[in-house]
């Protein structure tokens, strides 16, 4: 069996710099969760379908299970942990709570990142645009009804 | 899944039989064979790369000749292993003289197991069809070479 090589990478996550040595085959989501101890982003599948691992990489919404950690070298990564400033929920997070847009909370970080990406681009999305923006995020608990409502509430 | 078919060869039956029963010649017809070794006249192993998935699926396939009645009938069993795939195949062929050539009727029962099978179900039939037609095409070539050579 060939030896797996390692590489040192530097990333900025939620405004903080990290330098770590990783296996070149390590997925970005595992790097975030296991190496950086940022366990807010979750894993729900093994085929890149569920969106629980969604993060922003240089402003682009990415499923971090579909990316290698080494591909994120030098990137600016935003995860759910960066949304609330010093424990104060941002408007989107508060709206999720107000509208009961989460039950078990497992898909929630991914949903929040998808919604964040949407709202940066489009401050007043239609319901259809909202649904399309979270099409890549699977939720088994809510039926999406309240999630859409929460995002609508913030976009008015 | 079962696959079967029929093929005409413009060559005497003995020639076709010889090609089919020579592992070295058969190896040239099988697509994606990277190497093979012959253990005895009834057992041989081929290392193949099947065009499935990223970079192809590598397998080691053990062939065993189960039955034969020269020059008309043979039956083979193949058992292969690769990452995420297990292959079991039984194949047999019948040769009959026909109008200056040979008529071959063949059939194969192919079992593919493992995650590759679950995920590749939809493409399995087309890939098997493609592999079969490649084998038959190459077989034609081999038989022609054997006839002239």
């Amino acid at each position: 069996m060939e030896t797996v090589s390692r590489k040192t990478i530097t990333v900025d996550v939620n405004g903080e710099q990290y330098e770590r040595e990783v296996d070149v085959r390590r997925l970005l989501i595992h790097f975030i969760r296991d190496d950086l101890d940022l366990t807010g982003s979750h894993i729900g599948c093994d085929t890149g379908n569920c969106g629980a691992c969604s993060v922003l990489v240089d402003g682009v919404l990415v499923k971090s299970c579909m990316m290698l950690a080494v591909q994120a070298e030098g990137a600016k990564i935003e995860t759910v942990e960066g949304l609330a400033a010093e424990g104060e929920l941002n408007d989107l997070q508060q709206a999720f709570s107000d509208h009961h847009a989460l039950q078990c909370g497992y898909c929630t970080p991914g949903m929040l990142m998808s919604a964040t990406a949407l709202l940066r681009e489009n401050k007043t999305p239609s319901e259809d645009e909202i649904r399309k923006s979270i099409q890549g995020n699977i939720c088994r608990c809510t039926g999406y009804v309240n999630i859409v409502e929460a995002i609508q509430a913030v976009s008015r | 899944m079962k696959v079967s078919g029929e093929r005409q060869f413009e060559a005497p039956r003995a020639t076709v039989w010889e090609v089919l029963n020579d592992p070295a010649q058969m190896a040239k017809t099988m697509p994606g064979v990277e190497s093979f070794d012959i253990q005895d006249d009834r057992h041989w192993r081929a290392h193949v790369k099947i065009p499935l998935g990223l970079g192809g699926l590598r397998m080691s396939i053990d062939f065993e000749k189960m039955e034969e009645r020269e020059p008309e009938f043979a039956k083979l069993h193949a058992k292969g292993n690769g990452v995420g795939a297990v292959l079991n195949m039984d194949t047999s062929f019948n040769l009959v003289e026909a109008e200056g050539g040979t008529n071959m009727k063949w059939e194969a029962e192919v079992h593919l197991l493992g995650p590759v099978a679950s995920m590749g179900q939809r493409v399995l039939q087309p890939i098997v069809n493609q592999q079969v037609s490649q084998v038959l095409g190459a077989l034609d070539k081999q038989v022609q070479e054997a006839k002239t050579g």
Partner: protein
Amino acid sequence: MTETTVTPERALVVEEGDVKPGFIGQSVPRKEDKRLVQGEGVFFDDVKRHEMGYVHFVRSPYAHARIKSVDVSKAHELDGVYGTLTGDEVAILTDPFFELSTAPGANIKDYALAVGRVRHVGDPVAAVVARTRELARDAAELVEVEYEPLPHVLDGEESLKDEVVLHEEAGSNTVWSGVFDWGDFDAALADADHVVRIERLHFDRFSSTPLECSGCLVEYNRGTAQWTIHGNHQMPGVGAIWMAPALRVGIDKLRFVSQDIGGGFGNKITLHPQYTACCLLARKLNRPVQWTEWRTDQHTANTHGNERTFLDVTVPVKADGTMLGFSVRAIDDCGAFPRYEPLGCIIWAQVTPGCYRWRNIRVDFTQVCTNKSPVAPNRGYSRMQHLWLTERIVDIVAGELGLDPIEVRKKNYVKHEEFPYETPNGCIYDSGDYARCLDIALDLIGYDSLEEKRRDAESRGKLLGIGIGSTLDSGTNNFGQSMILNPELQFSGNNEVATVKLDIFGEVVVTLGTVPQGQGHETTASQVVADILGCTPDQVNVRAGHDTYWNSTAGFSGTYASQFAVTGLGAVKGATEKLAGEMKQLAAAVFGCSPDDIELVESQARIKGNPEAALPFMALGAILNANNAGLPPELDVTLNVRHVYRPPFEKPDLERKYGNLTLTYATQIHACALEIDPETGVYEIVDYAAVDDCGNRIHPQIVEGQVHGATAQALGAATHEIFTYDEEGNLLTPNFYDYHVPHALDMPPLKTGFIESESPFTPLGAKGMGEGGGAGIHAVCAALQNALGRRGEGPIVWRSCNPYEGVWDLVQKPEQTRKLVSVESR
């Protein structure tokens, strides 16, 4: 008689007959949210231990095979591999898991890893532990297993023949078999004006596929021989009952800890085999081991919902549309290992006649093993399959006799005045108003303009159908029903525990016995406590999650079967009332008055009518815990109260298979309007309404959220979600790429309505709810039938899952399904 009301701006009564506004009934902010929206929840995979090893299972590619050899030597040679576990070791170190059934099912030998044979694709054969997740996978590929393939059986009816037997020790694939016969079906048959016969109906395999996969982090303490399992098991009490005897240890040696769980829906109840393997590894390797299930493993080798075939359905009907009952032969396919089964063979009997007043019912029920994934109590467990049958019966009978399915339902529904209603097998439906719920549902989808909508659809080349799905969420089980299946089982009744205490600084702390996966238990518990103690939910601290060592659990503790509002909150109410009593006693002792003179208001204990004489909670806590000299010796208070709620159940009559099997029955009535494109089979739900009645709603937003979620899952199961196998036994939908679960664009516009029929049997008049009984599946099937069926001619919707290509088949070849139904008119 119960009151029902549509607009509950209700004042809630919690104690002593005083009507006062309370937190129960309000949608208070959820306590769970703050951490979850910040990604600060703690799911088991978030927990880490220094030097822990990662587990990867080696799984069978064969549906059925003998294991000739397992060679782990090459895996051990890989640098970074800590160790392995094989079936041979498991067979020596553990005893087979306890089986619930009678013989032959009782003789099945079920271990943590496959021993001697593999019985479904994905059956775990060996486990490897390594330094990293990636290395564990590498090492697993180096394990060499030699198999001798065996013939396999993938169909329930085929399995009955016992030509291919999965468990040689049992000698048969039949796990359990029995006949249920209530009323007098033969007399009903003789009395009928029409007899409708349905040859076959099939409820397909699917599951709620929770987003978080199963898993655990197991630590073993050598000094105390005790395991701590950080996992997501939803019913740890029962998990321990399986695991402790298998591991040959006392039950207190297994500590289950969980905080947040990413959905369970019944699929995290039979994790004991994989957990046991991890326990053995943690002990063998003397290091913590961590196992996270892959999505593919969850679909292939965790659990599915029960697959059930209904044969020879016979329905006697009177000329006016009154149905007298039905008889059916049911074959339940439970996959390779029963585990929680055969409970599914009786659980359906909680709702034997569905929503209907049918008195003569005969069910011949057999459960068999097949070489497919084992099943578990997936959301709606066993009742959903049976209720689907009753709804198909109503629609097919109405269709064949040219009757309006709405009128037939109303004619046959249990009537509002008849509650509490005793079913033919002695179950007591506590309260409800099905006809009223149906009317609300019809109103929400604009049923009055149905004909207009149908013509409009036709003008666009589409076929419009409207269908109803009536369902019941029976909640709070009487586990005595298991004795009907096996009289030797020692399970009956039910329980749940809660502990409520007043800490030294006056903080109220609640410890639940349940294992929430998003149902908001922390929040609703705090509402109940706040109303009793006269404080606010914010002032009530509810410990997040579950820990066996909090000592607040009993045998049936867990979160399953739509019961928290009854059992969990019943325990909370009981404990809090006792605590309130103690607080009053203590205050009375301090003030020198009678406890009856004390009231708990605004976080204080004070003398009624004398607001100056008040002791804040902090004072009470401090006095008892730290400053108790001088208290009267006979004062017996702890301010730390543990209460076990026990629903009022009797053991059922095993002979007649008769008795009350569940305490509450929540209703959901759904109406679905869809349009089919007959040229492609594609259909679109154009309007949808769900009306629920779960008695007093503790937290309306949470109740509605459950209705939304159950509807989404049911719609997925109705259209795309199905676990099918190829002829080799490979699962064709092993991941989210192939198994399509609804996403935001798939959901139709969803309208909801509700009524509240208080339960006369429960501590808070609330009923358990949440499973949703598969109402969406019933409604979609009914709507498809309505769109396609023509009396005596059109196709019959006979399966629960109707993907577009299936509908196309129904449209193209109606004669194929038409022959499943016959009508004998006298």
